[in-house]
Every structure is written in C-alpha cells, then in structure tokens.
C-alpha cells in the first residue's frame, strides 16, 4: 500500500469514527423520542431525518453545504465536514434501528414499573436502555459502515484532497479515473477487510445471552 492509500484508510476511519461520536447522541435521542411520540411535530421530524435515506447523497451534501454557508460555519473542505456529511446520510439507519428496538419493548413493562413507583428516568434506565442495546449496536455498525462508503455527500462538502478529505471511496474513484493509472487493489482490499471486520464485530456485539439449541427446537415443536 502506498502512502496515499494508507492516508485514505486512516482518514476514512477518522471520518467514520468522528461521525459515530457526533451522531450518537442525536440518533439515540431521536430514535427513542420518535418511538414514543405520534404527534404532528414528530411526524414532520421523522420525515426530515429519514429524508437522507432516499435523497441522492449529492443532494444531501449540497443542502448541508448551503446550511454551513448560511450559518457561517466554515467546516467545509475539512475532515469534520466529511464526518458531518457522511453521518447525515447514515443517520436514518441508526435512528430507525433504535426506534424499532424501542417500539418492540412490551408496554406492560412500563405499566408495571410505574405501578411500582419508578420515575420516568428510572424506567428509561432499567427498561428502555437494556432492551434497545441491540438496536443501538446494530444500527451503530450499519451507520459506521454507511459512512465508510459515502461518496457523493463527502465529495460535495469536503472536496477530494488526499490526506485531508480523500476517504477510501474518493481515493478509489480518483484512481479509477486517473490520468496516470495506478493499482486500486490495495484500497479495494482495505475496504473488504474493513467490511468483514465490521460484520464480525457486529455479530459479536449482538450475540445476546446464549440460548440452548434444544430449547429453540422446543419452541418450534410447540408452535
């Protein structure tokens, strides 16, 4: 791997890692809130935060760039801008996983907790938090993976400067169309390794308490 290849891998991890940190709290909060609310405001917010899932990422990037300019935040052309852009595109995946996990919680648990005098915060800490763990982790891994692969939004917001904003996909794009051809295989290999590690990691993190096989087949038999 050449110097530029390494710097692309390092930068990708930096960008995706920062995006994970930047978007963790908003995604958590929005996921939990959207699961428990059905008001008109919630519906509108839901549409807004889910929009990047279906919008072309170039459009999402373009809108983010306009926003940064409008608020005079000169974060464009920096890796922070790349993290903001790729995270915005990936955020719906995380929010949705958390929301689904929260919605799957049996409401009777809360009824019981309330009857025992648990405060809202205590309910959240002892019921919601442990039970959405899988949604949080699974969604987080999806989020991370999605940010690693983001091209369009990063390109628009951060440009394509090696060592500064050139993440793996941008470096591959650049090599694929280079005036002087060079091998793209090191970066393709790096992407493959990263994705395999990510999937392995998510499987590991998501592995809940081990259930015995006989028990599982028992459920099937009685169904």
């Amino acid at each position, binding site marked *: 791997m050449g110097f530029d290849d390494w710097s692309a891998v390092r930068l990708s991890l930096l960008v995706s890692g920062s995006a994970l940190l930047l978007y963790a709290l908003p995604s958590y909060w929005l996921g939990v809130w959207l699961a428990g609310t059905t008001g008109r405001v919630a519906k509108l917010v839901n549409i807004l935060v889910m929009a990047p899932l279906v919008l072309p990422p170039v459009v999402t990037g373009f809108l983010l760039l306009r926003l940064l300019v409008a608020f005079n935040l000169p974060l464009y052309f920096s890796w922070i801008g790349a993290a903001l852009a790729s995270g915005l595109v990936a955020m719906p995946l995380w929010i949705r996983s958390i929301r689904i996990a929260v919605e799957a919680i049996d409401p009777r648990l809360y009824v019981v907790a309330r009857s025992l005098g648990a405060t809202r915060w205590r309910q959240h800490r002892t019921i919601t938090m442990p039970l959405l763990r899988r949604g949080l982790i699974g969604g987080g891994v999806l989020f991370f993976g999605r940010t690693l692969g983001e091209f369009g939004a990063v390109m628009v917001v951060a*440009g394509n400067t090696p060592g500064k904003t050139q993440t793996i996909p941008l470096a591959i794009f650049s090599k694929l169309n*280079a*005036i002087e051809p060079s091998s793209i295989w090191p970066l393709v290999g790096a992407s493959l390794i990263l994705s395999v590690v990510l999937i392995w990691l998510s499987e590991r993190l998501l592995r809940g308490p081990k259930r015995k096989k006989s028990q599982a087949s028992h459920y099937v038999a009685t169904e």
Partner: protein
Amino acid sequence: MPTSTPAAIPTPFILFTLVLAIVPGCQNREQAVQRELTVFTAASTVDVVEVIGRDFTAQTGIVVRVAGGPSGVLAHQISSGARCDVFVSAHPRYTERLQQEKSNSGTLISLASNELVWVTAADRATDTSLENRLGIAGRIAVANPDHAPAGRYARDALQAVNYWEPLKDRIVYGNDARLTAQYVADGLVDLGVIYRSDATAFGDRIVILEALAMPSDQTIRYQGLAFGCDGNDAIAEDFLAYLASSSSAEQWRRAGFRPLAAH
C-alpha cells in the same frame, strides 16, 4: 371456467410472442442505430457539444445523445465496453490510451483549446490584484490533479512558475472542473484556478483576475475520437468533422474555448 384469463394462455404461445417481438427488433436495429449517435464528452464541454449536436441534428436528422462527465470516467466506461460513437476528451492521455486499447483506433481530431484563469467570486472581488490576494488569501480551489485534467493542467502551470509548493497547504481539491468552479462562485474559497470556459459558464458570479499561462511545451487541448459502434463509423466521423468545422467554431468561442477549426 373462463379460458381467457392470463394464466390460461399456454407458455409456448407466450414464448413465441416474445421471440416475434425480439427478432424484428434485432433486424431493425441497424436502421435505428443509423439515425442516432452517442457522444461522451468532457464535463467542461457538455454545454457546447449539446448546442453543436442540436445544430447537427437540424441539418442531418441524426439524433445526437450527449453524455457528460469527467474525461477519466468516460474513458474508463468506454474501455469497459460502453457504447459510444464519439469521445471528446479534455486530456490527450485518455484518447491515447483508448487508441492503444481498441483494435479500431478511430479518427482523432483536435477540436479546441482552453486556458486557465485565476478567479474569485464576484462578491469577493473588492481587490482584483492577484499579487495582493495571493499574499492574504485563504483557500485556493483547484480540481484534483490525479484524475481531473483541469487540476493536472493547473498543477503543471503552477509548478512551472514555482507557485505550487508555497501554496500547497492552502489548496483544496474539487472533484472535477465544474465543481471547483462552483466552489469559487459560491465564495467557499478565496481564489481558484479554473478553465476560462467554466468561468464563462458562471457568468458574472465569477470574476477573472488573470490568465495563468501553461508551460511552453503544453497546451490544454480537447481531442475528439470517433470510433463508430455498430456500423456507425461514417456518421461518427461526420459528427467529429462537424465539431471541428468552421461552422461550429463560433459555438466553441462563445463558450469560452479557442476553436482549432481544421478548415
């Protein structure tokens, strides 16, 4: 039970109908293809090639389909087998490589030249002295020199006057020529080095400060390469000749290029 439901139509009948539908399609293809050309053209030339294509259609009745993109992407698509009759490239390296790869090396004509200019956004143009602005200015936008011809030319030109090294840390790369010009027009950077044609395309949103001369052994040259797929050779060459003709020269000039009209 009604026999006319779709499920009741026997499969062989459906297959036969499909075959009937496909076979004449194959036979007619050559005829249909005769009236249509696919042109892949460098992003910076899309507008002008579209205009010239419309003129060509008006004169010959042949429909010209124009697909624009970074020259490198287009060259990559063509060498991967994309159907393309005429390719207009912003850098001779791509046409050279394609000619080496293809068994049919096609006809190559130089169409137009372009120029690099130092630019700034109209609303930042309070001080139009490049010298002063280079001293104080922040970011400078240049297209990525690894894959965008505009950036490669800009790097070569800046290196030739020993500007590249001192300015290097302030330079941000746009992904392609047009996007780089867009950064300038939006005022996201203080200065930019872009094609004169792109500066022209953005009208009064971009102010040209100075031209940036290319090293004496280099020119920014747009080349057209006609392959002609599926028996399209003749009209592909016709269109290429039309792009280079004196009747198209005015269109090139209006878009900010210098036409290299053959006659």
